[in-house]
């Protein structure tokens, strides 16, 4: 039985290797914020793969869904704060879609903690570090609990 | 590797007709903005030596991880050390093929289908009518005819494309034009600066040339719309249905008559075709 949707043949993550986490970051705010966190040497967990999207408005809810079904252990989406979207209302549309997705995934057997979305502006490197660290800890605790 | 023999070697008795033969791209010629000719060399030399086909037969080219699609073999049946496929960029597989470069590997399964009736055509005049990428199988046929030139009476080629830049195999066209034992008429759809050849659609050029139907076999390949008008024109000119030969295009997957996809009525284009005479076509349901 595949737990956490890893391919059945892949053995579950040993506590050493970092969990597979995908982060969709919007090009104008969150990506810049995350980049700033890197350049200012803020400590960040390993294993987080960033995918750049032009705007959270471009976020098809099927992106995180596909990632989780194919074996990602956590998906994070972050964009500009509502009201500050570079494209005016991209994040406002996204908020609804991603909230519906967040409510639907647990029903299908994915722990709630596996998908989150948030808003991080270009200057909030600190917040990015906080979000990505907390998110990765939560995912690790999930795997710990399961084995 | 595998204990199965591929289609390339055993033809009908291939123990696994789905298994392609690995080939390497030796040369790529940019025929037009969206057509490239790929020269493939099968890695397994003996299989390549033993491989034979008739002009008009097709092959399936595999891009591992992408898929397979069907292309006419455009090289001459006489050349033994490579195979050529002229590919127009259209779907997922052909577009991926256009991204490859010399040295990349592909899979080949060939030959499929029946090929042109070159035996029955012997001793007759041959009229070859091509349009756009439809010239690919006809190129292979023309090479064959020139190789056995004495077996055929006079040979006339009518080949058209949208613009001069859309004419394929320009080097071969020039060679054919220079020969005195064949007639080669080239056309483009409308006037084009620097173009001296004919201007007009292929069916119109055919009507203008009005070749005599007596003892002549007409072979035509091209986009469906052109085929429709060429067939009507040939009938108007008095060509017998048995002497009008064309090819059908269908979505293909297995290529060996098993996956049930490419049927026109009871016939499967991949094994009973792709070459049909007009007489055979008219027996099939009207679902072209």
């Amino acid at each position: 039985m595949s737990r956490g949707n890893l391919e059945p043949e892949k053995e579950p993550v040993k506590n050493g290797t970092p969990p597979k986490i995908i982060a969709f970051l919007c090009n104008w705010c969150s990506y810049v914020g995350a980049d700033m966190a890197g350049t200012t040497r803020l400590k960040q967990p390993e294993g987080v793969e960033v995918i750049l999207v032009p705007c959270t408005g471009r976020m098809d809810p099927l992106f995180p869904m596909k990632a989780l079904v194919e074996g990602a252990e956590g998906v994070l989406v972050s964009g500009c704060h509502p009201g500050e979207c570079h494209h005016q209302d991209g994040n406002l549309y996204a908020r609804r879609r991603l909230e519906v997705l967040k409510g639907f995934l647990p029903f299908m057997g994915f722990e709630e903690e596996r998908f989150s979305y948030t808003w991080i502006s270009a200057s909030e490197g600190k917040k990015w570090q906080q979000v990505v660290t907390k998110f990765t800890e939560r995912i690790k605790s999930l795997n710990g609990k399961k084995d | 590797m595998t204990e199965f023999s591929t289609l390339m070697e055993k033809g009908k008795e291939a123990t696994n007709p789905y298994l392609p033969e690995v080939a390497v791209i030796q040369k790529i010629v940019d025929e037009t903005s969206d057509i490239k000719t790929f020269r493939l060399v099968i890695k397994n030399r003996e299989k390549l030596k033993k491989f034979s086909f008739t002009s008009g037969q097709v092959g399936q080219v595999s891009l591992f991880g992408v898929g397979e699609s069907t292309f006419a073999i455009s090289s001459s049946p006489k050349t033994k050390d490579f195979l050529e496929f002229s590919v127009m960029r259209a779907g997922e597989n052909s577009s991926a093929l256009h991204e490859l470069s010399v040295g990349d590997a592909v899979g080949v399964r060939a030959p499929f289908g029946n090929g042109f009736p070159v035996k029955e055509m012997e001793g007759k005049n041959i009229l070859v009518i091509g349009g756009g990428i439809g010239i690919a199988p006809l190129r292979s046929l023309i090479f064959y005819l020139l190789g056995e030139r004495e077996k055929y009476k006079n040979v006339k080629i009518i080949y058209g494309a949208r613009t001069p830049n859309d004419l394929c195999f320009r080097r071969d066209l020039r060679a054919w034009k220079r020969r005195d034992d064949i007639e080669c008429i080239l056309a483009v759809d409308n006037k084009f600066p620097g173009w001296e050849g004919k201007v007009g659609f292929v069916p119109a050029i055919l009507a203008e040339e009005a070749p005599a139907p007596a003892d002549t076999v007409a072979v035509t390949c091209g986009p469906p719309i052109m085929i429709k008008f060429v067939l009507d024109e040939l009938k108007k000119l008095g060509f017998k249905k048995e002497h009008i030969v064309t090819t059908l295009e269908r979505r293909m997957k297995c290529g060996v008559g098993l996956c049930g996809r490419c049927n026109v009525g009871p016939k499967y284009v991949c094994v009973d075709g792709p070459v049909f005479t007009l007489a055979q076509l008219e027996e099939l349901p009207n679902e072209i």
Partner: protein
Amino acid sequence: MAGKPIEMRNKKTKEQLENLKTQVEETLSQVDFVIGYAKGYDVLHPTPLFVRSTKDAQALIWDDFCINNLATYLPSQKRPGGLFHPHEKIGLVVKGCDSRAVIQLLQEGIIDRENFKIIGISCQGKVDVKKLKNRVPIERVENAEIKEGSIELTVDSRGQKYPLEEVLYSKCLSCEYPTPLIYDRLVGGEGSLRSKGPKEFAQDPYHDVEEFEKKGVNERLDFWEQEFSRCLRCYACRDICPFCYCQFECIAQTRIPHWLSQKTASKENKFFHMFRAMHLAGRCTECGECERACPVDLPLLLLHKKMNKKVSELFGYKSGINPKLRPPLIIFQPEEKNIEEEKWE
């Protein structure tokens, strides 16, 4: 009410049928054809009927098994004309739950109101053949009749009786719109009040969703893994759905983009049903046809009801009720009342 209630039920159904025939015949003059119900291969399976003349109209039927949501024929790809947008005018027999699909299609602008005429017909609940199938070998049914609050099936020349509450569709037991919400003509006046279903069921149509949500996450994971291992990927659920009108370009079968492998393992099947549920978020009107059409009896309505429950909690939106409303996922509010940003401290 005078007379036993069930005899009243049969009486009403018969009257409605006569009235329906005349209404359909009258509509014929305004449309190219009317879609109604005809007798199918057995008494439990009526089949859609395309009426083009008064002679065809005689084959119309109306009974406790006419369940098909005929609104699925409105989007152009499924019409007999098929591929393009013919200017055909269509007449349609529509029950209460089906009328929600018509309204939702109008809200999505995929159909034009003046291109079709609705013959609304009030409904007293339909018998769920799959609930019968689990009780008796229905493939040998000879007759079915409603008598004194139960349905009597004759199978292998023996009568079997089942109380209606046990065999009606769950959506009928909690039905709020027995009378169609949109119609040009109405057959048989207002619908009967919501038929009395098992108490806790009647109040909350999302009763089964809440039951399922109480399970642990691994239990749910295993449940779906088990269920979707049966899916054949025949796409009957997609092709019967009024809102899946892009069969030609469905990402379940395209290679550009290449979302889904054609492999039929439980994982791929699950992803197909998940993204279909996502595509129906804020659109599905819970007509239940996907669950009825499924040859391997997957609990598909459960998926879409969960999605609708979430959408109604977040946006207070119910699909296919008000033609003026725009579906919730193509609009937004600057301040969303029911969505708070996740706290990370």
